[in-house]
């Protein structure tokens, strides 16, 4: 059960990160620097 929860949480966070990369910016007034692997 714990493994499923951890896996689900990590997947949701990964989707969120990718969605933010595809978007123009975050929904609030602060945009953290994007991870180096996404920099072209």
């Amino acid at each position: 059960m714990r493994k499923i929860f951890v896996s689900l949480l990590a997947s949701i966070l990964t989707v969120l990160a990718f969605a933010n990369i595809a978007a123009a910016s975050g929904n609030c007034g602060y945009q953290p620097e994007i991870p180096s692997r996404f920099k072209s």
Partner: protein
Amino acid sequence: MEKKGILSKLARFLAHETGKDQEVLLYALLLVKTSILSYTLLFLFSWVLGVWQWAFAAALTAAIFRVFSGGAHASHPIRCSIIGATVFTTVGALVATFYIPVGNYQFGMILLVVFVISSVIFYIYVPADTPGKPITSQVQRTYLRIISYSLLVVWSAAVYFLFISARDVFAESLIIASLGGLCWQVFTLTPPGYLVFDRFDTFLKLLWKGG
């Protein structure tokens, strides 16, 4: 990106357990933290003044447009939260205090003016990126502009029909607050918007450090 702290530890733990990229997880956790901080502070500010419904109507509208159109940003999550809470509580308080019921025709005219101005600003400035996340791809710039326009059209049609079918002043005032949120978001796309945001950010930075 922060190297220490609870978020970093949580990201390291999740990456270790699942094999996913730690930096990507930390990035997402920072986004979640900023959102929670911003909406909590906004709720506290606006709840104290008794205007949280209007403040949230404005903030959520601005947030949805911001995802696709971008705009000015603060240099720290706390400062972003304070600026957002101050601005949207002010919008909420202004609407809650000064809203005078208007007819469908007047509202339609106001909406038309906001729509035209927003369209022009969207055409010139969207997507308005930030130093932390520059948008270099032309394809991405094009689809963000198209989505922003589409969202503006859908939102305008939706609020017009909601307004003409609104049964009480409270519902009408929430729509006006949403309009206020859009106006602020559109303003933050422009150079004066960036300047105001930057001044606000610098002012809070000076307060933080004690001048």
